[in-house]
């Protein structure tokens, strides 16, 4: 059924399987456009499941905001098919971010040092690359982010 994400004291349910299936439809073509294969934005050392539970919500909230503010917004899809699939992902992740914002409102999404440190590392990897290249890379790494969420 639905996936329940346990992020410290923030607990949300989401149709993660539907989102993953949606991404798997465009994964190969999006990743094929990422030619900078020696740089990875979402690295094992900043993974959600490697973060202490209390900080997981804040870390995920920041990562989703990064995707919504700077990845989907600047991504230029090669065709309408990809455009629709990316729209589905953006809108699906938007619903998760809205749920995390509710946790934030209920004080169950604190930002500790670990979350801040890991997010700043992710941001530095993100800002290492030219704008259009990083957008393509970040979109191609959604399978990593979704796997982190699966394991949360």
């Amino acid at each position, binding site marked *: 059924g639905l996936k329940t994400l346990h992020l410290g004291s923030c607990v949300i349910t989401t149709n993660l*399987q539907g989102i*993953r*299936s949606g*991404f*798997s439809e465009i994964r*190969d073509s999006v*990743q*094929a456009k*990422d030619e900078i*294969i*020696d*740089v*990875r934005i979402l*690295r*094992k050392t900043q*993974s959600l499941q490697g973060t202490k539970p209390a900080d997981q919500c804040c870390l995920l909230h920041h990562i989703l905001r990064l995707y919504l503010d700077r990845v989907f917004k600047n991504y230029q899809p090669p065709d309408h098919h990809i455009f629709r699939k990316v729209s589905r992902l953006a809108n699906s992740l938007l619903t998760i971010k809205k749920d995390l914002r509710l946790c934030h409102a209920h004080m169950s999404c604190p930002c500790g040092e670990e979350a801040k440190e890991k997010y700043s590392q992710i941001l530095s990897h993100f800002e290492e690359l030219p704008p259009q290249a990083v957008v393509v890379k970040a979109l*191609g790494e959604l*399978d*990593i982010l979704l*796997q982190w969420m*699966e394991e949360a």
Partner: protein
Amino acid sequence: VPCVSGDLPKPTNVAFISINMKNILQWNPPEGLQGMEVSYTVQYFIYGQKKWLNKSECRNISRTYCDLSAETSDYEHQYYAKVKAMWGTNCSKWAETGRFYPFLETQIGPPEVALTTDEKSISIVLTAPKKWKKNPEESSISMQQIYSNLKYNVSIYNTKSNRTWSQCVTNHTLVFSWLEPGTLYCVLVESFVPGPPRLTHPSERQCVSTLEDQTTALEVK
């Protein structure tokens, strides 16, 4: 002796074939060079790291596959591989795979299926598929340990009524009782992990017959 790169066409259809985390890189000979004495060299790359790495057992080989299971066994990582063809002093450019994510892409093999019957029932015992292991001496890891939400789709075909029905289970033993005596039933089982679609491998179809009805057998005597 370095070869002249680019004079040969590249190998084609370079891709990972992955079942139970046994990750084999496979390709076809370059166009027009089938049957010729072509040799190949393989390299692989861990996404996000810095260098292409050699696979010594797959340098100057004549076969068209290379087992990269050991090199691609970290679930957290994603990989690329590439292969080039050599013939005499000429060689091709590299032919590269897309990004390969074993944890998401590996196909889940079928379970082992053991059937036992008596007069009116069939017991099915499933053994989860085993993950690839480097050395036979290593202890086996079941794919269930990797994918805790692994399930099985069991389908049963009643050859007498010509009907097939299915059941989705997570446990490894199930008994179908009140079957028809003296009837051939065929069982087929498929493992699957809920989530993004993966290719699946159903088990071999196994058929077994329930015993004849003992009561009528006694009356006949």
